[in-house]
């Protein structure tokens, strides 16, 4: 059997204790939540860590809570609960749909929303055993000096592969990190860094505790589209989340489109709202604008040969999935998934 490396396991009983441990061990420690991302990566010896800080015994960072106009989701809430929560399904359908399509059923029972946000980037040259990576001569992300995706590349381009990230981005979510030195809340857009080695701005010692969604009081439409080979288990070859808010006259008030499984960062497409704003539901203008958004996304998204799946094909699917997901959001038929 492929074995886990040895490590010191910490099981703090309070967030404070967890933060203290993380502050003490910093980069030599990894946070363990659901384990569905961390354990395979540990087995592949992608991290040099001596300490694993398990959040299994922490009370109170699970579940859903309304705080004013915000819905606050505990970071340790299992994805299966996010997918089936009626409030999320109603007010943040893109998130519910994205959560429902993460990996397979067992992963969604174990994996948490916070864990999916903090998912490590993925690449065909890194998510392999130590033996395999050594035979390759390693790569930029770990143990090596060359990139096998971009010839001569000096920056790791492993792909953000978290289904929920684009959904949270379209929803304007913010994230709460707690550390030994205090609490920090950041908009989710600010989390991402264009570096596949670590695509997050969270500092060592910070633990994600809450995901905050501002709920809208006007009509909200959302959907998630996922391209993958199989109907289950697989990471996205392309993920696309959309939000369309309508005003009382059924005209687009605001809209957002975000994609994942491209490069190191999930991408929020700029300029979508300008293309769609003011257009009426069911109008030809809206149809045309949706196509324009699809083409805009196509222009902005350049998948690489990082994750498995032909990059040209994935790029070609960008406008298809953007268009289909926008339509599904308006029609209430999401998610866009081949099954």
């Amino acid at each position, binding site marked *: *059997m*492929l*074995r*886990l*490396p*040895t*490590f*010191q*396991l910490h*099981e703090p009983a309070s967030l404070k204790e967890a933060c203290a441990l993380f502050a003490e061990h910093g980069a030599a420690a990894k946070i*363990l939540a659901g*384990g*569905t991302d961390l*354990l*395979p990566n540990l*087995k*592949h010896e992608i991290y040099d860590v001596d300490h694993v800080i*398990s959040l*299994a*015994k922490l009370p109170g960072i699970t579940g859903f809570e309304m705080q004013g106009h915000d819905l606050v989701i505990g970071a340790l809430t299992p994805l*299966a609960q996010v997918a089936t929560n009626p409030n999320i399904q109603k007010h943040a359908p893109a998130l519910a749909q994205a959560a429902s399509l993460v*990996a*397979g*059923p*067992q*992963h969604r*029972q*174990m994996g948490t929303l916070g864990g999916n946000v903090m998912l490590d980037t993925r690449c065909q040259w890194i998510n392999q055993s130590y033996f395999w990576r050594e035979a390759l001569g390693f790569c930029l992300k770990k143990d090596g000096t060359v990139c096998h995706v971009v010839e001569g590349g000096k920056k790791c381009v492993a792909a953000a592969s978290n289904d929920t990230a684009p959904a949270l981005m379209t929803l304007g979510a913010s994230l709460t990190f707690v550390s030994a030195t205090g609490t920090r809340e950041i908009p989710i857009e600010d989390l991402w860094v264009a570096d596949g080695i670590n695509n997050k701005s969270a500092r060592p010692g910070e633990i994600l505790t809450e995901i905050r969604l501002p709920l809208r009081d006007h009509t909200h439409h959302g959907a998630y589209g996922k391209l993958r080979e199989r*109907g*289950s*288990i697989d990471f996205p070859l392309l993920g696309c989340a959309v939000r369309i808010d309508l005003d009382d006259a059924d005209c687009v008030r605001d809209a957002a489109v975000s994609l994942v499984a491209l490069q190191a960062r999930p991408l929020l497409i700029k300029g979508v709202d300008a293309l769609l704003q003011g257009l009426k539901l069911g109008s030809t203008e809206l149809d045309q604008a949706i196509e324009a958004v699809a083409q805009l996304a196509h222009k902005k998204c350049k998948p690489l040969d990082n994750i498995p799946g032909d990059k040209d094909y994935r790029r070609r699917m960008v406008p298809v999935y953007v268009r289909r997901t926008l339509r599904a959001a308006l029609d209430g038929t999401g998610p866009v998934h081949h099954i």
Partner: protein
Amino acid sequence: MRLLELEINGDRLHVAAPPHWTLLEVLRYELGLTGTKQGCDKGDCGACTVLVDGKPQLSCLMLGSAAQGHAITTIEGLLPAHRAQGGAGADPVQDAFDRCGALQCGFCQPGMMLSAKALLSENPTPTSTDIKHALSGNLCRCTGYTQILEAALLAATKTEEVL
């Protein structure tokens, strides 16, 4: 080494295991509960599925320690639980899988049956589509899933009869 207190199939057990051992390794190699299978090493196949508080989870991606405080059900737990309720023969899910020919090599089936069990306890009258979705994290290489689907549907009717 740490001493784990685990609740497995209704028994409270104490077992010493290194902290980097997964629940799968603790079950198979410490407790001799080898009915839980290992197929892929890292959460890709579902053969190691056990029920954690009734929900299907992957024991190869769970540290032994993380199982503490939860009720773990392995495939070995179904028959005794069925007997404890006064049932004859095997558990309705196990019996239906056997009857329908769903057990070819049988290797993926402990995990598959536990996923089916979890589904039926939540939804006693699932459709074929429900079953396909619920079992979509358990890979089977022998059956093409057809007889598994038949078995799960049969188990649903039999479970209803029992209840």
